[in-house]
């Protein structure tokens, strides 16, 4: 296993980066998201995607889903560092705990007329995206699915008059009957 940087070694060792989806159960209190984000920026970790919302109103618990990349040692660090924050109840690495379902929602605005407009609608159908707003010059599509599906759809819309995209970030949950 390669070593991370230190005050004594300059060369950054070549290491394979892994992408992990981490699910964090936290107290829904002011500042808790700032603690999590501050940890990532302060220690130089990556955030690829971050989704947060209250999920258990009675217990005042929120679930934060973070997609991050790093070497195996850094991913371990991220989980351990998260776990020692006081308002954090649990940290689960969904990537290592078996099969997980990951979904993201995107709103995609496309403007155009004629053949391009028809083609956009046709592709939207193929991707099971729904038009939730439209005029004679534009559509707003809603699409849900894995990140790769959304990225593919957005790429296809690019030449057809893509105006802008808004994405929710990844929500993820483990398959099966058990609780996290």
């Amino acid at each position, binding site marked *: *296993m390669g*070593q*991370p940087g*230190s*005050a*004594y*070694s*300059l060369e950054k060792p070549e290491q394979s980066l892994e992408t992990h989806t981490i699910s964090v159960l936290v*107290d829904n209190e*002011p*500042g808790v998201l*700032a*603690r999590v984000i*501050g940890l990532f920026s*302060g220690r130089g970790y990556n955030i690829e995607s971050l989704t947060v919302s209250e999920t258990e109103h009675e217990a005042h618990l929120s679930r934060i889903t973070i997609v991050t990349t790093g070497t195996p*040692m850094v991913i*371990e*660090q991220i989980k*351990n*560092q998260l*776990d*020692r*924050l*006081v*308002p*954090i*109840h649990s940290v689960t690495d969904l990537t290592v705990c078996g099969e997980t379902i990951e979904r993201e929602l995107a709103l995609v605005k496309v403007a155009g007329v004629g053949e391009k407009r028809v083609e956009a609608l046709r592709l939207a159908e193929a991707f099971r995206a729904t038009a939730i707003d439209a005029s004679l010059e534009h559509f707003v599509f809603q699409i849900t699915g894995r990140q790769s599906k959304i990225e593919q759809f957005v790429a296809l819309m690019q030449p057809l008059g893509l105006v802008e995209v808004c994405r929710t970030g990844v929500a993820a949950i483990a398959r099966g009957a058990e609780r996290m």
Partner: protein
Amino acid sequence: MSATENGSVKMTGAQIVLQALADQGVDHIFGYPGGAVLPIYDELFQQDRLQHVLVRHEQGAVHAAEGYARSTGKVGVVLVTSGPGATNAVTGLTDALMDSIPVVCITGQVPTHLIGNDAFQECDTVGITRPCTKHNYLVKDVDQLAEVLHEAFYVARSGRPGPVVVDIPKDIQFMTGTYKGVSNSQHKSYVPPRQGDPAAIEAAVSAMANAKRPIFYTGGGVINAGPAASESLRELVRMTGYPITSTLMGLGSYPASDKQWLGMLGMHGTFEANNAMHDCDVMVCIGARFDDRITGRLDAFSPGSTKIHVDVDPSSINKNVHVDIPIVGDCAYVIDQMIAAWKAQNPSVDKEAHARWWEQIETWRKRKCLHYRKKSDVIMPQYAIERLFALTRDRDTYITTEVGQHQMWAAQYFHFDEPNRWMTSGGLGTMGYGIPAAVGVQMAHRDSLVVDIAGEARVLMTMQEISTAVQYDLPIKIFILNNEYMGMVRQWQELLHGGRYSHSYSEALPDFVKLAEAYHAVGIRAEKPGELDDAILEMIKTPKPVIFDCRVDKHANCFPMIPSGEAHNNMLMGDDLTEEDIENAISEEGKVMV
């Protein structure tokens, strides 16, 4: 204050603060008043259970609380006002975080309705202190104040200790709310581990039993785990007969006078400790964190050894160095578990191999890495520490330091046989730590000898706290190794920058003897080796704060040293260095590092 029907007590926010401190067993708090904490200060005025110590700067308040905490094992408590009071405390809080010192810092805040309005003396205290505390709170409901304060003490002292800030708006201090006592129920999310995994402990003890070249490497975690953990460590180390070294933070947990003790390891550690770390086949790390001052060059750090790491904080494990047997748990429990497992296994160790290992260690010891050339006309700084140690060793002594050469000399030449006797800023390396820390230590140990081993440049950063010492009759001794340089900066400029001593000369120094007198303290000066002992004895018997101006050799450097970018077995030794050696000590690559 009034009792309600269900037995809970109604009182103001300020009264809740004092009641919570009393219920947490707090005797002393270190603070500085200001607009946003006046209601709490008003309550302090009307009671005499808690003693408040008025510092001269909020950084000093936190360092004093750290000194108090480190010398007693209790939580240190700080009370400061909003805005500049809180921002001045930030250096101390960061210091406590880096060294895992339990501190609760209560900060005043502008009234709730003014938060976010850029009010007078407002700052985003929880925002600013979030990365430099273990946890922090802004209390916006007086009914939650008591619970938050009790939780703050729990978080500060549990697991890996650290500083906790409780920010209390002024209107909450005036408001009436319900006081709740200390609860014994388990915290909803923060429950640090205690016992280590028995299987991991079995594996660790087997590895230790089969070792041919074993070493214990211990740190501040053992001291944080309480005096009983140090006792257990001694039992474990003596039981195995293995050599032991320690970090700067861990000095005193194992007696320096013992034959199994190799001295401190790391950048300015001993030749024998660092070489033993490099060549060992089983390393037992207990309560230390493989800091960069310890490991030297990571890719050459103790190659080929099986590494066992005991730490209460899982994020310390596998952070810098990959370890083979991680044990997450509190040292106080895990060391006892290891002793029990060792006794149960009753292993037959390889005595021949161990004898060869000790022989090897003896050859390193014979190198006498701490040897230095004494001079007859100038006091060598190492000699000053040696004499200070010799003349105080039979006393009840506590040592604090600033940061730099004098700190390393203190670690090398002053020897500690007990834990909680050595207070130094290890992780953050904060200049100005020593005087306020000494104030905190002396407050807790009124009859002991408390010495701040200092440098003349660093001591000026918090010199005003001598005034605190005078006010409270705290006879602290500030022992300044005065070489007229920021010595460690000068040493690095000599090693790295061709001897271009950019801004490291302490020009326009005050006359420290007169300065002491101006503060109504006592000033003593020693300039020649011959007068040193008498001057130190005079310092010890003076029942008042003393500033001791010990004029030492201006060019002495701190050796041995692992130069930047080098491994443990490539140390610079002090006694036979030529100018050329010094010029070439650090590679072009190594110069970029800190």
